[in-house]
């Protein structure tokens, strides 16, 4: 019995080994020739989170657009999900297992930048080949309709006078929402660490909404789309949005931006795409061109409109500089509020 199992297992292992060898041999020669007709094989787009979330939706929209606008050179694109730890598990896989493979792309975003810091991930975005940022969503600061706060300034004055006077609610610890709370406290001149300690993390927008409605928290911070309906219904009031300029948070009239309210702060929950480290310059150019074509296609414009995503396109060196700047800023604020 054992012998027979061995007889099956040995060739299988050999087959596996040779298969791997073939693959590595097939990829290394003549990157320039490969880059000329990129993609030369199935394009893998990794969504470093579960199905249905923001990164997954972005990856699937990219896949759909690339296929429908015929940008794939006759090849196809596949999306796969690698879940966990704010995307840092997917990031580690991209950096360690897919080096030099220009056909492996990964969706990334601000949440991963925060996750790298809070999870003490050994790899960060600087280890990847940045390609582009694609979309962004503004955050919104909301209070219950019966709250005493009608402007962001009143709120900021209160936390400056007493950091424990306001209870905040939002998404997971160290995520975009808590980062915004920390940045806002800093901008208001309040004790950022003491303010961030008053932050209660909820799993998902549903729980945050319920906590604001039940009166558990004074202020909720979330993506604009999450609260649009309650703002529209008049159940909650939007104090400010986190983009550069004011935007409609659901009420029909624009809510002021944090900047317009007098605090020098802008934070967008952006999403983008990166390639593994070690790809050649010509391969990088080819990937950049592909994503550029994707961004310029009418199908992508349609996707942006359908999903209500804000276009936030920076490509190549500009994207790399942006990733680096965001990483520094987020690391600083997370360390200051004690989550680094």
């Amino acid at each position, binding site marked *: 019995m054992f012998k027979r199992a061995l007889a099956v297992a040995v060739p299988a292992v050999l087959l596996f080994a040779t298969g791997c060898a073939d693959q590595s041999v097939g990829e290394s020669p003549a990157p320039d020739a490969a880059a000329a007709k990129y993609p030369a094989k199935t394009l893998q787009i990794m969504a470093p989170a579960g199905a249905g979330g923001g990164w997954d939706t972005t990856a699937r929209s990219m896949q759909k657009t690339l296929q429908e606008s015929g940008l794939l050179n006759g090849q196809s694109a596949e999306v*796969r999900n690698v879940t966990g730890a704010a995307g840092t598990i997917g990031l580690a896989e991209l950096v360690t297992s897919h080096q030099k493979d220009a056909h492996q792309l990964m969706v990334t975003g601000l949440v991963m930048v925060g996750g790298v810091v809070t999870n003490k991930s050994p790899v960060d975005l600087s280890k990847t080949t940045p390609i582009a940022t694609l979309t962004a969503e503004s955050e919104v600061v909301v209070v219950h309709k019966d709250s005493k706060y009608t402007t962001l300034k009143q709120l900021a004055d209160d936390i400056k006078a007493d950091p424990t006077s306001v209870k905040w609610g939002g998404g997971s610890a160290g995520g975009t929402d808590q980062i915004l709370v920390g940045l806002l406290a800093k901008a208001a001149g309040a004790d950022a660490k003491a303010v961030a300690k008053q932050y209660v993390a909820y799993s998902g927008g549903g729980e945050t909404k319920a906590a604001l409605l039940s009166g558990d928290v004074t202020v909720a911070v979330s993506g604009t789309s999450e609260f649009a309906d309650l703002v529209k219904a008049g159940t909650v009031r939007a104090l400010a949005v986190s983009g550069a300029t004011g935007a409609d948070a659901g009420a029909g009239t624009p809510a002021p931006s944090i900047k317009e309210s007098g605090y020098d702060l802008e934070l967008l929950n952006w999403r983008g795409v990166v390639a593994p480290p070690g790809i050649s310059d010509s391969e990088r150019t080819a990937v950049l061109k592909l994503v550029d074509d994707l961004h310029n296609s009418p199908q992508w414009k349609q996707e942006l409109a359908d999903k209500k995503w804000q276009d936030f396109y920076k490509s190549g060196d500009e994207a790399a500089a942006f990733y680096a700047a965001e990483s520094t800023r987020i690391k600083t604020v997370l360390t200051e509020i004690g989550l680094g």
Partner: protein
Amino acid sequence: MNSFMDLLAGFGTVLTPVNLLYAAIGVTIGTLVGVLPGIGPALTIALLLPVALRLDDPTGTLIMFAGIYAGAMYGGSTTSILLNTPGESSSVATSIEGYQMARRGRARAALATAAIGSFVAGTISTVLLALVATPMARLAVTFRASDYFALAVLAMVTVTAMVGASLVRGLMSLTFGLFLGLIGLDSLTGQARFTFGVPALLDGVDIVTVIVGLFAIGETLYIATRPRDLPDTVTPLEPGGKGFAWLGKADWARSWRPWLRGTALGFPFGALPSGGAEIPTFVSYTLEKRRSKHPREWGNGAIEGVAGPEAANNASFSGVLVPLLTLGIPTSATAAVMLAAFGYFDLSPGPQLFEKSPELVWGLIASLFIGNVMLLALNLPMIRVWVKVLKIPRPLLYTGILVFATLGVYAVSGNIVDVFIAFGIGVIAVFMRRFEFPIAPVILGLILGPMMETQFRRALLLSDNDLTVFVRRPLTLILLLLAVAALGLPHLPRLIARIRGREPAGRLAFGDED
């Protein structure tokens, strides 16, 4: 009677051949998905979203999604009953008595009471959804962290019956579950606990991984360790066909009350923003066990133990729709994905949805009725087919289960570490079976532990570490007092007897063996 007219209009929207086809497709896919361990309705709907977008038919799509959910809930109970391999946490309670029924040749009756119970619960809770959605949702969002904590404590003490015959073993299982629930990033501070430097553990151990490990993999490995002790096929079947729909007169008589009680538990729990489908199934199981006139049958296949939890499980889905439709608050993974679907169709659930798109809301509610009828129509005859699974030779059957379990775990996370965790838990489960540790308390600890901890700490954080928060709010206080009562009442006769200096007359509700 306005709601009633709206509902009639809803039926008008839904009863088109195309929509009925969507409902049929949804129910069929859902049943299949439910049968496969690991792959649940949330993942299925998420994967179907891009397809659904192209259909450009909001009503049809939502009808299909509702069908998938209902079908998955039912499909999950099929494998729980026949093979003791629940795929979702909400069918764990069903598997306890359901599998024992199947082992005694009563698989058909167990499947039938599950199917009819799901139908009854689905129908009643949909009526409740139509009638009381708005006031119910208003009530649900008044629950604060301290109330949730008290509710979790109450749930924990009421479901002690799950602990089984031996108190010590039961508590050890529970503690194992509590430990598993601690693994990962602490939700409030983001600190890693028990992750041993493994990044894949940062998000904690997924409950689906644990369930597949404990049940599907554990059961398979356990069977594999004792090939000679067992007959070639899983169970002999009692000759079927007695009574109406495979249920004899006595079965009907013993099933209908648990169905109703299960519905009454499932619906409100589903409506709570931090409720869910699991707790009501466990509470229903305990309730039925306490009330049962046949206490000796428990542990050997009491039909009430299938009827109650299955009804609770299905009723909770209509409950989940209450805050989703009226406030846009998703309370389960599936609801969150459905919320995304609403978004794509430019529909924002919430206070305006009932006014702005009544045809859609009432169409969805009507489609839940249709889905329930279709599920019953599909599944009652299918029982004949399902029980054939039991005739598959054991080695083939369990090989298949192992393959699908492994695939299911990998499909959810795309991470091989999760597969290792599932198998590791499976090996532990083999020893738990060998030494007669109950399995269900592990799930209980895994669900209730994190809920109690998180809500307790949230309540303290929000009250600036003032412990009186748990006695200041009337609702919290009432729930906690109920928990004390639930814990103390079974002991009361004994205490009184002791005070009067006499020997106790009765035995304890649990822990008999020790």
